[in-house]
């Protein structure tokens, strides 16, 4: 009986858990990139990369983060192909962003390849996350 109550209480605690804060998750990511040899990270370089135009073999015209997310990561974006709305990426405009490590790394994996034509380096990811966090 006690065990049942304990399990129920644990379940409740899990559902009531405070959602992760973007700042904490970004800190964790930055530490992980540092462990890979990157850093220090520079939000200004992240900002510059945000609008940098990349040309690569698979793209018929230059691409940037801003192609879909607009020049301002606090604004709503639009998928370049499907036109589907993209919620703001900056945590200051959308607190759900940058709160899950897997989501962060999945989107870096996909979108760096789409935009830059290759994986982003740990340094680039750290710069971009620093920029987005500080907006």
């Amino acid at each position, binding site marked *: 009986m006690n065990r049942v109550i304990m399990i129920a209480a644990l379940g409740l605690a899990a559902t009531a858990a405070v959602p992760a804060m973007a700042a904490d998750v970004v800190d964790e990511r930055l530490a992980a990139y540092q462990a890979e040899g990157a850093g220090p990270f520079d939000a200004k370089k992240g900002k510059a990369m945000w609008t940098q135009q990349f040309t690569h073999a698979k793209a018929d015209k230059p691409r940037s983060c801003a192609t879909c997310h607009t020049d301002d990561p606090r604004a709503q974006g639009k998928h370049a192909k499907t036109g589907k709305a993209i919620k703001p990426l900056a945590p200051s405009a959308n607190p759900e962003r940058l709160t899950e490590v897997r989501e962060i790394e*999945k989107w870096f994996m996909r979108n760096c*390849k789409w935009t830059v034509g290759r994986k982003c380096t740990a340094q680039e990811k750290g710069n971009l996350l620093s920029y987005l966090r500080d907006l």
Partner: protein
Amino acid sequence: MKLKAIPLTALAVCILGANSVLADDDWGWSRRAPDVAPVKNELYQSECGSCHFAYQPGLLPAASWEKLMGGLADHFGENAELFEDTRKTLTVYLVTNAADNVDGYRRSAKILRSLNGERPLRITETPYIRYKHNEIPPRVIRNNKDVRSLSNCAACHTRADTGSYAEREIDIPGIGRWEDD
């Protein structure tokens, strides 16, 4: 009192229900099940639905989904890679609910029959879907800035997210209702 109420209720049900019970473009009655099974998988909805309409698994056969999920690095020109565990989970979901693995969904059955053994990657390349849209002029889809592509189901099919593609539910941006002549 009770005897009177029953026929009246029945009559009201008939009148109110006729519009929604009669299938729109076939002559069948009491189409209770949606055209295709609705998506009830949150992981699928969030992973695939973040970039595009979360197409119901019943719109393609299992072999199409397997092929598609094996090539996410080039997903119609986009990179849609997933972590391997997510990819596997979603492939199982898609295959289990594919057109050839579900029963009782009218449009899934029609898509499957039209394929004649073909297993295309695109829903818009299935003969049934092509046939259903083949008389639509460019201004309605291709040149309509709020639609652009036949793959943008929910732009016109207002209840597409529930698995319902009835003709009476069509509302084309800038044009409105659509009736086949």
